[in-house]
């Protein structure tokens, strides 16, 4: 189910009656955990990996990326994000938490930037902002102000009895800790004392994208496996026509996400076990933003003649 709603507060009101109920209960989640663990046991045993390289980390972001193209994942390791992109992401995250915590009055951009500097002092965008001249600041403001305002509008109305946990990290160990699936949610909302009241909120600094749905399902899986309860919903906040996108969580979603997790873990385990083997190249729309696009023999014909830049 995907349904456009105006604010996070409205989403929570609609979800309240479902707190505590699920078609996918604790036993099913325990079974799912066991079944993933069993598959990954076999994967790790077959890989013959150097024990010093454990744990093999399977972060949420890398699952989607490695299933798209392992060669691109490797090429991008260590590359730095442009300061303005880094700052936009941080502004969106902070604006979302600020709005969820302080419903009365939206924060000015300058307040949001102060908060970014407090929580993420090494964000390269902060230095960029501080060192900018007046003209540059105006340009940055044009890119950041609408983002901050739209995210705050979308995250308004969170009732005060919901607890907002910003930047919550979730980890699920498999194969006795040799494989570690991780995710960091921009916000985890819940009502203390109410089992299965969790709502995971992901904040995007750009418009909605089809990959966000796949990400949402992975968040649902990792949170279910961590807590033993499936979350009520995954909410993606983004700019554009659908600022608040709600994905309900059910058994089908979790099982599909588990298959993606296992598939990605297999690729990552293999990359760690065989570091000198060239990773697979898989063409697709992601070739447009791949550092290898100028030299990769498998580059998608759609982008071989040029790039989105």
């Amino acid at each position, binding site marked *: 189910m995907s349904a456009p709603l105006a604010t996070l507060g409205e989403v929570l009101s609609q979800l309240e009656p479902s707190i505590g109920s699920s078609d996918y209960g604790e036993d099913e989640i325990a079974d799912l955990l066991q079944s993933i663990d069993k598959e990954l046991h076999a994967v790790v045993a077959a890989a013959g990996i150097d024990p010093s390289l454990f744990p093999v980390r399977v972060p949420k972001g890398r699952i989607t990326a490695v299933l798209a193209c392992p060669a691109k994942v*490797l090429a991008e390791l*260590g590359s730095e994000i442009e300061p303005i992109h880094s700052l936009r992401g941080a502004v969106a995250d902070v604006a979302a938490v600020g709005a969820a915590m302080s419903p009365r009055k939206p924060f000015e951009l300058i307040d949001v930037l102060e908060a970014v500097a407090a929580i993420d002092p090494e964000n390269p965008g902060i230095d960029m902002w501080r060192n900018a001249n007046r003209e540059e600041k105006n340009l940055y403001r044009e890119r950041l102000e609408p983002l901050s305002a739209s995210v705050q509008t979308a995250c308004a109305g969170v009732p005060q009895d919901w607890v907002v946990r910003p930047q919550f990290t979730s980890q699920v160990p498999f194969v006795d800790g040799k494989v570690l699936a991780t995710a960091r949610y921009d916000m985890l909302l819940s009502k203390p004392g109410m089992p299965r009241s969790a709502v995971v909120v992901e904040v995007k600094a750009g418009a909605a994208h089809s990959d966000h749905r796949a990400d949402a399902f992975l968040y649902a899986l990792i949170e279910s496996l961590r807590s033993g309860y499936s979350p009520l919903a995954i909410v993606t906040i983004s700019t554009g026509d659908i600022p608040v996108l709600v994905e309900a969580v059910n058994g089908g979603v979790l099982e599909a996400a588990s298959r993606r997790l296992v598939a990605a873990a297999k690729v990552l385990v293999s990359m760690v076990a065989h570091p000198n083997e060239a990773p697979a190249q898989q063409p697709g729309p992601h070739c447009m933003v791949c550092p290898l696009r100028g030299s990769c023999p498998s580059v998608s014909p759609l982008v071989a003649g040029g790039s989105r830049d």
Partner: protein
Amino acid sequence: MTDRSPREIGQYAREWAAERLAPVAMQTAPGRYGDADDSERVRLANFGLTTMLDCEARVTGLGGFDGWDIFKATRWLGVRSFHRYVSDDGVTTVQRAVRSTMANTIDDAKPDSDFVDAWMKDQTPAVRALLAARAGGWVASLLETVRDHDYEAEAIRPPPVDGPPMRFYLPDRAMLIEARVDALYGRRNPKGQSSETVLVMVNAVGVVDEILAFEGMATTLATGIAPGFVAAVMPKLGAVKKMAVDIALIERGLVLAERLADLELRSKDGRGAAGVQRSASFFGCKDCSLSPDCGAFAEAQARPALFGGLQQPDQPAPAS
């Protein structure tokens, strides 16, 4: 040994700690800890321990307290908000507990204070909103995780926030061991079987046993009475690990304290990090003063993929 009462274990632990740690304690300034100069004091506590378990060399490069920030303020506010949440009947939600604790702290802030009250007062509303969210999240994670592991939420209590710090001072030396107690559960019984459990929030999930040993030992030394158990609450994993506090656990904790004391002393007596185990990690190396001259860091930087658990190929991918 196993039939000793919690008070007897506490007495034994204090005597044994003083003897066991004497060789390292003797290297600190003589006299009371409080009378020593800041640069001569050795404080063995959770932060140094978790740093040591990540990279021993980094302990030798740690500076002193460098002022308040949102990360330090989060736990301070979290513990006090937790205290209010469980002790004030008029406060029914975690968020309300955080907001009222924060408002009181700011209202009561003393001018020219170098404590967290003045820091909090200086912050913008957006920073305060973030701080409130983080502190509320800390309390909620603690309660949720222990509740999911069959602890009754109503029986969980915060540590006394206005009481003396949980410290054990090595006799006549500028060295102390400080316990980190995030919450308490169960009933203390100094004479017989104690169900009292010290709860500690743990993020470094790979070294839980060591953290429990240190905190079980430190709490026993600080109070003079062994708690029945010490438990690590791990919200990231949604897990709780509990260990009985006995002589073996205290011994294990003392071994860690001894090692930590030696590393802390290295930063004061000029021995530095020479010959000490080094281990690179993304967050650990980021703010480490030793990074510019550290071989482990240089090696890891040359192979950045290691940080993510991947190794880069020696050669670029061949054209197929």
